[in-house]
């Protein structure tokens, strides 16, 4: 077997990467076959059993930091047992076979599709498995008598790919395919007409210099004109239709000037052909249509790709619920199918799929996405469990009281929908300028024509007016802004910043007020050890106890111990109490880890020094975990939700750009205050640091902020509780790591989860606006000079025709060279 395993960059010190997924493991470098988990080991041996080791040499060598492979919970795939209930369309085929289309998660590169398709031979009854990389789906053709999609799903889950119902509406998808084909047809037609018109044009130009018979010239002119008119009628039709729509609804639209210039081209070509003298226009008309259609296709692709990647991200969070049936068995159902009174089981680590009352179990839940509180809350029998929160430590049985639209999350989404309908589309500078430009040029044309008619003959007047209309190129103006934006959007997507609404990027160029969510946005949103006081020897002992405890604090202590010491001994006689602590025997030492009350229960007393230290830490609102060895206190962990590494840097940058920043958090006011005090130097305004904000009050705050000033009001957030505010803000930016609801709501979505990307966005925004302005200025100067010359009759139409594409190309080159989202870290 050829291995091209490269060392991932962010390895934990002295550890070797997992053979299957390349994630760092706890094992040391000298061991060769190491795996990060049993899932990976299973996948690795399965791949070898099937003789598909080539997978490891096929996959691309530059996977950044391991890929999310390995143990995928196979139970999730049992949702495919009842295809009907899961909403999967099964298409029967003629020979008794069936075909289904399912979404695949975990596809990374060519090797994945290769592996999945080779799997097909190992499942009897599976006729074919075709992976489509473009939308990350798989089409299974199978014999329903011999196998079912769920078997395929279970096998693939072992390899780390999970199959789920393909959520994009098949009608939407058909619509997309149809539109894409229409675009291709349009481009093919336009290219045909343009190429032919061009060579006829070349013949005429050549004829002009070397001589051509009048009969041939007229013939060529007419053929070329007919081709160009066809080009305007068939592939160019969409511009006239869009312009007509815009005129009827009285909205400014870039297609109006485009349609006008096409119309001028058609009239110019006809007049030229009829008169048989003067310059020809049909070649530039046909090639203009080709360029425009190509531009539209690129824009369409960019938009579709964005919406597709979002759909894919949202699918990761497709919720399923484990329903307890009356006969005691369990069944996996989509959470949208839950009904009032259903009893559901929620295992540790799962998201609670609906609102309900806990009827069995004793656990704690992470509610940070819903209300921004990062410390987990305990939950017991009889308590209300809210959908969207995450169960942490122990299984829970919940009787559903509200699911779907009537649940808390459902009602919040209603708020989001209302908020997004209130957003008014902003008219961009490009639209305004183009509109005036067309009016001015048309007026000038009328004036020029009448003036030259008066001064000399109508033939001369027509010639000069044609030169004017040809040379005045509104298309360069109309194309500049969308082009600059499209280029920027594409580059942003490469950095995992998805922008659904290009205008938002333009809005960010003017500094205004920026509201930040705290938990998950300014901070990591998870428990970590901030500091350890006391004897370092105690750390591995504490980790030994905490390793077996399912609690964020326990996990944080283990992570801290890995980074400090690496390894720890085994613990025995473990005892653990929910919400308090754990105790046990480690290498013959009695160790207790937990709260002050827990240690007091063990009869351990604290010295005055410790109590003093405790008071100091508690004043910062950080939870404390104590470690005692042999009934003596040996150390103290200061826990907390640390600021993101890039938070300070980003805030400083934004302050320098003139943004005013505030915090909108659902967490307790004193915690928000302590974070705000920490960041006061970096630009957070203390009076704008607001805690205990419900989703509704966040929304209200954004609405007030928008009403108060003309400057943009932006919001950065990650949770369900931010969603409505994100939708209401002028620019809503969602950060990955939070909830799908936030993604629905925000027009900009940062997929790499880095706060520094907000700074990148602002930089890019300034550059985009500057780029558009530069294109405008260049285009206007060009137009002003040449139009003046044309009005004075100094420009021959032939020169005008040469100059027009040059100006267009200049704008194109300027747009492409806009430095948005380039360089390693744009500043």
């Amino acid at each position: 077997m050829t291995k091209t395993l490269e060392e991932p960059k962010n390895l934990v010190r002295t550890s070797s990467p997992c053979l299957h997924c390349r994630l760092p493991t706890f094992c040391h470098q000298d061991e060769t076959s190491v795996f990060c988990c049993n899932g990976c080991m299973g996948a690795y041996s399965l791949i070898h059993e099937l003789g598909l080791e080539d997978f490891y040499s096929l996959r691309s060598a530059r996977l950044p930091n391991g890929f999310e492979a390995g143990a995928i919970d196979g139970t999730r795939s049992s949702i495919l047992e009842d295809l009907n209930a899961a909403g999967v369309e099964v298409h029967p085929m003629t020979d008794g076979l069936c075909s289904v289309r399912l979404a695949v998660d975990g596809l990374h590169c060519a090797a994945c599709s290769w592996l999945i398709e080779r799997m097909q031979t190992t499942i009897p009854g599976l006729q074919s498995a075709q992976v489509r990389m473009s939308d990350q789906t798989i089409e299974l053709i199978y014999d329903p008598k011999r196998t079912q999609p769920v078997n395929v799903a279970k096998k693939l889950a072992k390899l780390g790919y999970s199959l789920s119902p393909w959520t994009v509406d098949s009608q939407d998808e058909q619509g997309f395919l149809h539109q894409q084909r229409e675009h291709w047809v349009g481009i093919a037609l336009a290219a045909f007409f343009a190429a032919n018109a061009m060579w006829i044009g070349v013949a005429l130009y050549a004829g002009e210099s070397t001589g051509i018979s009048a009969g041939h010239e007229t013939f060529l002119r007419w053929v070329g004109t007919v081709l160009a008119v066809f080009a305007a009628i068939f592939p160019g039709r969409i511009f006239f239709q869009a312009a007509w729509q815009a005129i009827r609804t009285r909205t400014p639209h870039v297609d109006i000037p485009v349609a006008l210039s096409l119309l001028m081209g058609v009239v110019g070509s006809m007049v030229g052909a009829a008169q048989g003298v003067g310059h020809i226009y049909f070649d530039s008309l046909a090639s203009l249509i080709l360029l425009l259609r190509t531009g539209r296709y690129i824009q369409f692709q960019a938009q579709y790709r964005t919406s597709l990647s979002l759909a894919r991200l949202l699918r990761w969070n497709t919720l399923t619920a484990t329903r307890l049936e009356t006969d005691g068995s369990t069944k996996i159902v989509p959470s949208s199918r839950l009904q009032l009174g259903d009893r559901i089981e929620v295992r540790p680590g799962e998201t609670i799929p609906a609102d309900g009352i806990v009827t069995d179990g004793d656990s704690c839940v992470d509610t940070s996405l819903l209300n921004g509180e990062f410390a987990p809350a305990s939950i017991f029998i009889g308590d209300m469990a809210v959908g969207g929160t995450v169960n942490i430590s122990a299984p829970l049985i919940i009787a559903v009281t509200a699911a779907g639209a009537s649940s808390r999350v459902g009602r919040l989404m209603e708020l989001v929908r209302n908020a997004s309908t209130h957003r008014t589309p902003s008219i961009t500078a490009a639209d305004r300028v183009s509109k005036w430009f067309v009016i001015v040029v048309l007026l000038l044309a009328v004036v020029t024509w009448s003036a030259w008619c008066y001064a000399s003959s109508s033939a001369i007047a027509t010639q000069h007016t044609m030169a004017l209309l040809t040379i005045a190129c509104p298309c360069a103006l109309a194309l500049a802004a969308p082009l600059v934006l499209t280029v920027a959007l594409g580059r942003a997507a490469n950095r995992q910043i998805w922008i659904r609404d290009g205008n938002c990027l333009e809005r960010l160029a003017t500094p205004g007020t920026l509201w930040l969510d705290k938990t998950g946005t300014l901070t990591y949103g998870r428990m970590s050890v901030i500091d350890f006081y006391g004897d370092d020897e105690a750390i591995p002992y504490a980790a030994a106890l905490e390793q077996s405890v399912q609690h964020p604090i326990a996990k944080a202590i283990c992570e801290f111990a890995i980074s400090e010491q690496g390894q720890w001994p085994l613990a025995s006689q473990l005892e653990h109490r929910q919400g308090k602590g754990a105790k046990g025997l480690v290498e013959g030492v009695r160790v207790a880890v937990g709260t002050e009350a827990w240690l007091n229960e063990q009869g351990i007393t604290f010295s005055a020094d410790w109590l003093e230290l405790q008071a100091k830490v508690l004043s910062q609102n950080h939870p404390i975990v104590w470690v005692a060895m042999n009934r003596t206190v040996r150390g103290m962990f200061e826990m907390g939700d640390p600021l993101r590494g890039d938070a300070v840097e980003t805030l400083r940058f934004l302050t320098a750009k003139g943004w005013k920043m505030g915090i909108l958090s659902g967490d307790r006011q004193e915690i928000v205050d302590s974070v705000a005090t920490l960041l006061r130097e970096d630009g957070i305004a203390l009076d704008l640091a607001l805690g205990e904000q419900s989703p509704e009050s966040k929304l209200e705050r954004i609405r007030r902020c928008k009403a108060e000033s003309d400057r943009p009001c932006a919001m950065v957030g990650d949770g369900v509780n931010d969603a409505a505010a994100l939708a209401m803000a002028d620019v809503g930016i969602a950060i990955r790591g939070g909830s799908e609801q936030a993604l629905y709501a925000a027009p900009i979505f940062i997929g790499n989860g880095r706060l520094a990307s907000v700074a990148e966005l602002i930089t890019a925004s300034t550059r985009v606006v500057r780029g558009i302005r530069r294109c405008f200025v260049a285009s206007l100067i060009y137009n002003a000079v040449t139009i003046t010359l044309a009005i004075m009759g100094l420009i021959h139409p032939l020169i005008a025709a040469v100059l027009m594409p040059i100006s267009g190309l200049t704008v194109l080159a300027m747009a492409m060279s806009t430095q948005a989202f380039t360089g390693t870290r744009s500043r």
Partner: protein
Amino acid sequence: MSVLYVAMPVALLLGGSALLACLFCIRSGQYDDLETPSVKLLNDELKQ
């Protein structure tokens, strides 16, 4: 009569038939997925 009056329509007809073939390919879905075929080509090569 000049040969141009015959040659030009013939040339356009030839070009037009190629265009029709292209339109047929597009409408039959050959251009729907431009990513996977390229990836698969590579795979088979590596397999040998």
